[in-house]
């Protein structure tokens, strides 16, 4: 479903922040994207959510080579992707409800459907009472939950999240990753950039490890492996 072949990315005339990145994500897979700060996680995510095009190499998504895709096709591809940004990127003058409803409105859904779905999802993330609040009057954790709700409201085929649990307590963080897991079981491909070892261990999915612009795939550590590592 998603294929990166010898992908490189640089900003302007600077050095490559991603070099020869090769990986394939099957439809319906769940991956954690991890690595030290500055390794290029956000840059890789920006390629995945079609925020930029690679400097070199081939990125294929949903069977289309991004470099050759028409503008209209890119628009349709983006509608299949949900993104939770590290800085949330909520529209400050819109209420929590309208922020979450935005992707549905872009898709042209009816207001009746929007009212029902958005209210249900906001209740689920624990913001049913705060739906009319503006983001500027919400706490960081509440804003993050609005951002997550906005990313999943359209049931995207690809869900990307950049440190989605950074501002949440462990219980809500686990609950939200649980939501991502649930979406994944329904067929959504999920990539979550995170530093949280606890979350990665708890959910035990494959990891894309980025180091100095290069990527490698790691299998999840099993309970037995972890025990053996502890013994030896």
């Amino acid at each position, binding site marked *: 479903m998603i294929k990166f072949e010898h992908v490189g990315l640089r900003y302007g005339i600077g050095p490559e922040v991603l070099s020869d990145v090769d990986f394939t994500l099957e439809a319906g897979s769940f991956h954690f994207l991890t690595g030290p700060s500055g390794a290029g996680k956000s840059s890789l995510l920006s390629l995945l959510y*079609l925020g930029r095009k690679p400097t070199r190499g081939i990125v294929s998504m949903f069977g289309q080579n991004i470099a050759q895709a028409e503008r*209209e096709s890119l*628009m349709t*591809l983006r509608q299949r*992707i949900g993104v939770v940004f590290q800085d949330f990127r909520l529209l400050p*003058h819109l209420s929590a409800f*309208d922020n979450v409803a935005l992707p549905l*409105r*872009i898709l042209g859904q009816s207001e009746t459907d929007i009212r029902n779905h958005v209210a249900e999802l906001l209740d689920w993330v624990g913001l049913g009472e705060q739906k009319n609040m503006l983001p500027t009057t919400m706490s960081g954790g509440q804003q993050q939950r609005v951002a997550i709700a906005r990313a999943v409201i359209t049931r995207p085929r690809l869900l990307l999240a950049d440190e989605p649990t950074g501002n949440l307590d462990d219980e809500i963080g686990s609950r939200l990753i649980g939501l991502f897991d649930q979406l994944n079981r329904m067929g959504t491909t999920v990539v979550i950039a995170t530093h949280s070892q606890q979350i990665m261990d708890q959910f035990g999915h494959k990891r894309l490890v980025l180091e100095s612009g290069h990527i490698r795939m790691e299998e999840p550590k099993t309970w037995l492996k972890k025990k053996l590592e502890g013994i030896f």
Partner: protein
Amino acid sequence: MRLPFFKKDIAIGSARSPRNYDLGLEKSAGSLFIIILFALMTYLSLLSVGAGLWLYDLSDRYAGGLSHTATIIISAQEKNGQNISVEKIETLSDQVNKMMSAHPAVSRVTILTQTEIADLVSPWLGSNPELGDLPLPRLISVTFQPESDVNIEALSKRLISLHPDIRIDTHQDWLDRVMRLTSTLKNLALTIILLIGGTTFMAVSGAISSKMAIHAPELELIHLMGASDQYLSRQFERYAARMAGKGIVLGLGVMMITGIIFWFALKTPTNGVAASPDLAFYVWDGVALCAVPLSIIALAILSARITALRVLAQMP
């Protein structure tokens, strides 16, 4: 009931209600400046269109009133400065009247009375009763058949044969000069309207560009969610239309005040001479004046659309 404009917005998903859009354009800085700019454009456009229409009407009336007519002037003085006697002038008037009435191309001959002539010169000389002593020329108005082809030179020679101080004036020279002047003024009004249109287009384009720069992060976000360029540009088009609407209301208000002042100024007599230019208002004048605000709104929407789509095309 909502206007079709809003229905379309809702249909493409860029608005949920007349006042609720994804981008907080009206809440950001610069909106007041745009409204004032539109008000100024409306005011100047209406002035130019109004002046153009008035000049068109004026030249049309002059041309219509003076074509196929001529004035025969029997001078009150001979070339050597000697006054011609009243009796002699009366005799010449009768002769001219007979000659003209017998002419096959002439449909009407009217000899202006002394009172009518005095009325004609009263705006310049006033209505002093002592003016009756002044030697005033005798004026005879002649109207020709509309399709007739009159040889004015031959007619003039026949009149001179009656008396060398009779001349015929077809007003052509004067009419040509007036027509040239009104034509120049009409072209000037049109140039001003075009300049205002161009300036409005550029100003809206600049304002939309700066709005897009201010809201760049939000635009990028909505773009990344898969919004079409149409969806995004529609918000700027609607914003421009709303700003134009507000500006037009303001401009119309100022224009009405100007119109009232202008009207009173024309109706107030100065030194006993009325300054009324006999203004007329036709249905087409109303249509042309109504077209001004509509054109400004259309121009604002077009400019916003072109600018927004051009900027959005640069996004990946």
